[in-house]
């Protein structure tokens, strides 16, 4: 029987998907063999796979989380290296969607693979039964479909399809690896065409196109309706087609029309749209081509243009009056009941999409949860179809469909006036076709704060933060403001939390469910305070933050920071004050204050010096650590993964990385508990700073950047101030011992000084208004 652990993976097919999957396996720290064909007359027989890796190292957003991950990819070709498959525990086939080629490959694989080594296809169109035709029973036991979404690093959905012969243990092994190591949410799909996400997604897109053409709705308006207001990405239908490639549409359509059973609703909406054929013919295939439904007309000064669906000519993009009020803010009923063409289009797209999705349980998916997960994670919908049905009302949808003479899916009839989801005893439950509600069960180790919230009230909360009991004596500090920005309220709550946790709990985790851990200090608030010249209030806020963070650092219990997504500025600094970090692999973390003309003010300087001073292999003396910190902070460097944050010493040796976002809280909690026994708070460091000599050296470095045009005039000023702080502010020299408190004072004064400079204020303002840094 098979090993239960996957130690090495082979990916065959180094196209975008295959290469991306290989990269994600490497990101998990697992060696991966990437094979492709030998091109005719190739001198380098591995050129395809090697080229794919080289290309990925230049791709943005990056498929690799770090350079070291790239080194885990071993490249080769299927003619010379196929026998290496014997070393692998899982083989992922990601070659061209042609049955004959896939079958041929499987035949060769069968000859070299170990029994129990899982083989999966990344097909999105071919039924499993056809794939394994002609293979041995043993091969069939090891075979399944694992359908990744593009790009594999960033899209969290993986659909798994098993055949009648698939060994459950093999499937479980793959599922476990995909979940824990690759960080995917695994949705089990049936062996039906398009599985779940693409089947519904294609249907939705087709409806969106059809309705716009039929009703004469301009492209902009269509996307303004079937976009954000529906809780789907703001690209809408046309924008999405531009993004994925218009030429893909006929392929998808042909594939689904030829494989879906007669009587499937899709046959009723699939149609040739002459304009689309014309566009493809002329090379207007979307963003990758000459343009799509939208384009930038460079001959007219980068004018934004949109195609007119009636004439097929480009015209200047228009501003449209989309849904307003509740209809724009997620009230789906208000949306489909909007007056005029807005309501009509919204209903035409949404009503039939939801009906179609509802008809796929149980033929394509076991339950409503699988369908919702697939659409949320595969198409980035805010809510899945059934969650949308609940917003609309199952009864409302059923009645409106019936009134139009359309079939009412069984699940809607079963639901009647009941919702598809409900909360019962603090647990989320979903409705089955048998009319009974069952708990939504998450895999072991999956934990979200949202689940905790269903069954409890916060221990304390205010406008910007809350404290939750997450069980086993562990407390979670959650930020709750916009972008989880940090302000006086957060600091106040930290101040309240420390004695409370010390008295009644064992440990604290700093975590939240949001996509952004924290964007840092609330700059809007700070700017407002600057604008009304409330200098003393601002200084209080800075000092209050320093006090709160040091309070966490020296608290008599362990504190674990568990960031995911962005953790910038003050959001990074709080992590630096934690005893340990358990980070999600997707971590965008750094001290970015210089970008807005400021310097770290909540203890970040000292903590980073301390981290680099204790880094393995650092040369002696105060300068090397300070130089490292200066380089990182003055350039506002941000990690593009947790792995990179480790290279930046934000994460230390014992800090952990969690690949699956849904497992982060659980892992962080375990880490916190592991620290409880015998916990003693750290001792306050004493610093030796390089003084005037070091200041000169850092200044010279900046001057060099300035001369080469890489630093602006004001960059020189800001990094000069940062250099002052890091080298002792002109108050301390090489021989002096600087206490943590003294360094905090230097940092605070430097921060206040920058905030009073109009050029820093201009940077802050620009960042808030445009989201981009001002290079003044």
């Amino acid at each position, binding site marked *: 029987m098979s090993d239960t652990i996957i130690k090495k993976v082979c990916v065959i097919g180094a196209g975008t998907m295959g290469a991306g999957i290989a990269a994600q396996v490497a990101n998990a720290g697992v060696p991966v063999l990437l094979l492709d064909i030998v091109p005719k007359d190739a001198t380098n027989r591995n050129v395809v796979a090697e080229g794919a890796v080289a290309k990925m190292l230049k791709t943005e957003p990056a498929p690799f989380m770090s350079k070291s991950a790239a080194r885990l990819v071993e490249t080769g070709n299927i003619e010379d290296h196929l026998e290496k498959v014997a070393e692998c525990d899982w083989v992922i086939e990601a070659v061209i969607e042609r049955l004959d080629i896939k079958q041929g490959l499987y035949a060769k694989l069968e000859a070299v693979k170990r029994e129990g080594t899982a083989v999966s296809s990344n097909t999105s169109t071919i039924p499993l039964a056809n794939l394994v035709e002609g293979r041995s029973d043993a091969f069939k036991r090891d075979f399944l479909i694992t359908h990744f979404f593009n790009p594999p690093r960033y899209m969290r959905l993986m659909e798994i399809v098993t055949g009648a012969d698939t060994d459950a243990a093999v499937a479980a092994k793959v599922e476990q690896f995909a979940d824990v190591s690759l960080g995917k949410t695994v949705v089990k799909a049936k062996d039906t065409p398009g599985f779940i996400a693409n089947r519904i997604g294609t249907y939705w897109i087709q409806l969106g196109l059809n309705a716009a053409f039929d009703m004469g709705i301009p492209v902009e308006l269509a996307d303004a309706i079937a976009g954000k207001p529906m809780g789907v990405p703001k690209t809408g239908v046309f924008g999405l087609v531009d993004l994925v490639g218009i030429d893909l549409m006929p392929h998808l359509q042909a594939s689904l029309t030829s494989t879906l059973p007669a009587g499937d609703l899709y046959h009723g909406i699939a149609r040739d749209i002459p304009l689309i054929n014309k566009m493809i013919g002329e090379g207007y295939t979307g963003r990758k081509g000459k343009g799509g439904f939208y384009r930038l007309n460079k001959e007219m000064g980068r004018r934004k243009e949109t195609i007119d669906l009636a004439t097929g000519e480009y015209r200047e993009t228009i501003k449209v009056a989309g849904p307003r009020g509740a209809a724009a803010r997620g009230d789906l009923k208000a949306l489909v009941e909007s007056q005029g063409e807005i309501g009509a289009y919204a209903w035409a797209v949404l009503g039939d999409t939801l009906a179609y999705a509802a008809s796929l349980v149980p033929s394509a998916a076991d339950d409503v949860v699988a369908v919702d997960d697939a659409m949320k994670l595969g198409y980035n919908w805010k809510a899945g179809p059934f969650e949308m049905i609940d917003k609309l009302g199952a009864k409302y949808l059923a009645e409106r469909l019936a009134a139009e003479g359309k079939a009412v899916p069984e699940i809607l009839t079963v639901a009647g006036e009941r919702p598809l989801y409900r909360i019962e005893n603090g647990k989320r439950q979903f409705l089955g076709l048998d009319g009974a509600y069952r708990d939504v069960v998450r895999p072991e180790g999956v934990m979200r704060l949202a689940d905790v919230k269903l069954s409890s009230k916060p221990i304390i909360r205010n406008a910007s933060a809350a404290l939750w009991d997450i069980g086993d004596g562990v407390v979670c500090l959650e930020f709750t403001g916009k972008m989880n920005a940090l302000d006086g309220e957060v600091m106040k709550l930290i101040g309240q939390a420390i004695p409370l946790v010390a008295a009644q709990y064992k440990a604290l985790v700093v975590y939240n469910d949001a996509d952004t851990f924290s964007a840092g200090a609330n700059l809007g608030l700070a700017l407002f*305070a600057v*604008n009304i010249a409330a200098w003393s209030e601002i200084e209080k806020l800075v000092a209050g933050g320093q006090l709160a963070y040091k309070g966490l650092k020296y608290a008599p219990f362990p504190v674990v920071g568990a960031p995911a997504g962005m953790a910038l500025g003050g959001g990074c600094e709080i992590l630096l004050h934690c005893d340990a970090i358990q980070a999600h692999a997707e971590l965008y973390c750094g001290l970015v204050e210089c970008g807005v003309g400021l310097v770290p003010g909540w203890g970040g300087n000292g903590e980073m010096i301390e981290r680099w001073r204790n880094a393995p292999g650092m040369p002696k003396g105060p300068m090397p650590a300070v130089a490292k910190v200066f380089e990182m902070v003055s350039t506002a460097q941000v990690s593009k993964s947790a792995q990179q944050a480790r290279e930046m010493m934000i994460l230390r040796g014992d800090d952990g990385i969690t690949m699956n976002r849904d497992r982060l809280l659980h892992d962080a909690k375990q880490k916190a508990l592991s620290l409880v026994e015998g916990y003693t708070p750290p001792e306050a460091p004493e610093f030796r700073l390089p003084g005037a000599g070091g200041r000169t050296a850092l200044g010279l470095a900046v001057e060099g950047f300035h001369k080469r045009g890489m630093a602006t005039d004001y960059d020189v000023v800001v990094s000069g101030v940062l250099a002052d702080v890091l080298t002792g502010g002109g108050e301390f020299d090489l021989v002096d011992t600087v206490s943590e408190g003294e360094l905090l004072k230097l940092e605070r004064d430097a921060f206040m000084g920058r905030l009073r400079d109009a050029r820093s204020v201009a940077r802050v303002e620009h960042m808030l208004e445009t989201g981009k840094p001002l290079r003044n």
Partner: protein
Amino acid sequence: MQVYEAPLRDMKFVLHELHTDDGFGNLEALEEFTPDLVDAVLEEAAKVAQEVLLPLNRSGDIEGCTLENGVVRTPKGFKEAYDMFREGGWCALASDPEWGGQGLPETVNKLTEEMICSANLSFSLYPGLTHGATTAIEGYASDALKQAYLPKMVEGTWSGTMCLTEPHCGTDLGLLRTKAVPQGDDSYKISGAKIFISAGEHDLTENIIHLVLARLPDADEGVKGISLFLVPKFLPREDGTPGPSNGVSVAAIEHKMGLKASATCQLNFDESIGWLVGKPGKGMEAMFKMMNTERVSVGIQGLGVGEAAYQSAVWYAKERVQGRSLSGVKNPKGPADPIIVHPDVRRMLMTARAYNEGSRAVGAWVSRALDAEKHATDPAVKARAEDFIALMTPVVKALFTDCGYESANLAVQVYGGHGYIAESGVEQFVRDARIAMIYEGTNGIQALDLVGRKMPAHAGRYLRAFFHPVSDFIAANKEDATFGKMIEGLEKAFGALQLSTGTIAQKGMKDPEEAGAAATDYLRLLGLVAMGYTFAKAALIAKARLDEGTGEAAFYTAKIGTAQFFFDRLLPQATAAFLAIKSGKASMMALDADMF
């Protein structure tokens, strides 16, 4: 008796001495307007105001405007006065030289406006509205329209109006119904009824150019569907002379509380030909351009009336003998002392005086920003000027008109029973001043504009242009040997303002009603701090001049005295406003509507 002599010395003080360090700089484009030149302009304007306009103020109030057979007649003497005014080039004073204006700085222009308003508020509306209309045309109309209309309007041969209000809508213009139907060429036919149109019809100019808000046939509902049209009373001929009548008729003129010599008309537009000004659906934008200019000018109206009322009260307080001074006889030869000896009369006179000087000083600061906005070459200065104007426009409008009305009321009180009698001439000030608190957006609307739009915009950026200079001034001068105590008072009021700003911004974001409940008190608080700041600055400058011994001891001593009075007796209102703001909306909104 209506007494008025232009306060030229104080005007020159705010113009040349008070704001030289405000960072709006000395503008190169305005260099030709030397101090000597502008002083001469002010002196000439004073003469026109005192000698031509003031004598018509009371007679115009008595006679009022009349409507006969569709023709509006202004009171006796107005036509002659207007002709003189126009021929003297006063209509064109601040307009762009490109259109025949003299391009005078706003700093000077606003002071001449003040004089005209002091002397005759009704009269001021005729050239005032024309100036507003030219601003909108300059900013938004096509070149052809500009060529055809601006030269005549700038010289004052033709006048202008702004037609917004309709019988069923004033503040909420989104409801308006006047229609504009495209004619296939570039013209439209405008039909509808407008009310409250100042200078809507009169006999002072040969043509009247109406700027009319109307709706296109396919327009959106609400304010986004409103466009602005230029509709002349007479369609100009090729040679530029007024041609055939254009279907604009006067249904009635309003019978008003005051401002009787200004014709306030109900106008009917019956398929009148008009042309689009600006883009379709962007009428409010163009109208606001004009409105914002007008709002500052309406503030100046409040100041103008306040000044005239104050001077009339001072004249009376010195003339009228009644009772004896509490500190002993002051006028032994007479049967009684003049009432100016009495503390409570002083309270009233000083209050009006301080409001007037405070308004004039703040107004001059805003005027400097208006000049910088137009002429500054440094984009940072220009941007700061724009921010400052955006913030201060509602403050100038509401604060100055509130204070002007208060001053007019106090003047009546100084006159006692005589003030209530029409012959005294001072009750007219109350009636005239009252409208300024209402039109061009009521003062309540100004306050909402301040807290709802201006305060939160760009994370409070507009506030910076005001808060930073005040903060810096306090930091630099709070140790001042003579005025340290005064500046401490300013610091306290400023602290209350900062705190209120933070509170309103925070509460208002969650609950707009909280911002609404605080708005009027907040505007007053900001206005008081602005006046306090200019008074403290003025006191420091006056002291320095006195120390130098410039020989104008009376002026500077009085300036310090008035400043001290403001700090002692008027700035404490800031504390009251602060406490009122702090208490929030609860008691304001507690009663159900049917309990009223």
